[in-house]
């Protein structure tokens, strides 16, 4: 690992100022789990690391009935998984955060680092997208908020400018009629990262689906909203056949990646299976029976 300076700002504005000062030389350091690997492999060689480790304000998790859930970007996955607030209001998020990676990484890696690094093979993006997350990003010249839909651009690419910091993730107050489902799939049970995951949010009105949000993650360069399937499911009362049709459409609509963990065809098939299962589950159908 090359040498670098390690700075520890005490406030967010101090952090953004440091980033501005050092320009391209500088890089944000959160939990470090992704960054240290990248540094060791010499994929990058920043001269200055601006650590957000001392910014307690960025670690907080709060709930506000109007604003919803506010998660500081420096909250670690286990902070989220174990938070009473999250478990009460957004159990699906707690579950997701508590099930990703492994215990050590959950104690080290932050949600902000996870989102900003934008490794496709991760869990939070699809789940947060289904819940309509909104992100707060601060730069030297102030703050902006963007919907999560606009955040992930491509592999390892997000809609942030150099020098900006992701400070907070906001999830709107939960709508009691909307249920959100999240499921990750591992290629084999021994695998460490998901080959695909799927998040589904639906309002189940007497058997018919409304306000459907269906997002596939980990199998695509960036989490992908499956509009076509959403449209297909909207207003429909879901039967086993509908779930199967939605699954086929999802497999068709997605833009899969192909790598050592699985090629395009495999990823489509996994997403087909996940879609059928989650849609069936959302409609209280048993997905385990066929033929």
């Amino acid at each position, binding site marked *: *690992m*090359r*040498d*670098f*300076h*390690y700075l520890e700002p005490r406030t967010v504005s101090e952090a953004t100022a440091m980033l501005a000062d050092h320009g391209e030389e500088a890089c944000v350091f959160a939990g*470090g*789990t992704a960054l*240290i*690997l990248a*540094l*060791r492999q010499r994929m990058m060689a920043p001269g200055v*690391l601006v*650590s957000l*480790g001392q910014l307690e304000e960025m670690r907080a998790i709060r709930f506000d009935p109007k604003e919803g859930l506010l998660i500081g970007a420096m909250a670690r996955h*286990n902070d989220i998984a174990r938070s009473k607030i999250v478990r009460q209001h957004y159990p699906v998020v707690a579950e997701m955060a508590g099930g990703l*990676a*492994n*215990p*050590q*990484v959950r*104690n*080290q890696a932050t949600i902000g680092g996870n989102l900003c690094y934008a490794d496709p093979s991760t869990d939070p993006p699809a789940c947060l997208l289904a819940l309509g997350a909104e992100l707060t990003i601060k730069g030297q010249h102030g703050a902006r908020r963007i919907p999560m839909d606009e955040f992930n651009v491509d592999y390892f690419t997000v809609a942030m400018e150099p020098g900006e910091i992701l400070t907070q993730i906001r999830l709107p107050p939960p709508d009691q009629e909307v249920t959100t489902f999240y499921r990750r799939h591992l290629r084999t049970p021994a695998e*460490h990262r998901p080959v695909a995951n799927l998040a589904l949010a639906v309002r189940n009105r007497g058997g018919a689906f409304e306000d459907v949000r269906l997002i596939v993650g980990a199998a695509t360069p960036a989490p992908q909203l499956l509009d076509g399937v959403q449209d297909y499911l909207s207003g429909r009362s879901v039967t086993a056949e509908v779930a199967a049709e939605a699954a086929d459409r999802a497999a068709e609509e997605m833009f899969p990646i192909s790598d050592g963990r699985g090629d395009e065809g495999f990823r489509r098939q996994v997403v087909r299976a996940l879609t059928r299962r989650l849609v069936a589950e959302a409609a209280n159908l048993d997905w385990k029976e066929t033929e």
Partner: protein
Amino acid sequence: MMAKNRISLEINGEAVEADVRPNRLLSDFLRDDLALTGTKRGCETGVCGACSVLVDGDVVKSCLSLAIQMNGCSLTTVEGLACDGAPSPLQKSFMECGGLQCGYCTPGFLMAASDLLARTSRPDVATIRKNLSGNLCRCTGYQGIVDAILDASEKMHGT
């Protein structure tokens, strides 16, 4: 070469002051600078868990941490588990239940198990296995390790 930074931390109950280069990995700092070689390097990519230590009670991988991040923290390494040089109940259970063979993975599993048992006094088998997913062992097939943790939880917290 970059200047070194002074860090103060506590390791296994003792105050430590050290000058480290910012790019010093915690695992290297422990092993090479402090001669705490119980912490192992097995992959240095965050997968095998052989380098696990506790930071403020949380199990983390020291190969994915910088020493400099530890300023002000309290660390426990495998060397800190023993009671007056004798094996702790958890270490004893690992010895007696076949929780170790070659022993290379053992420090890491002990740290993961310590974190688990501090949070959940009587974990069930599924919980134990889930909480070991960040550690690899090639010798035991995990059975002895799971048995050891069950045994320790029983001995430490009663039935």
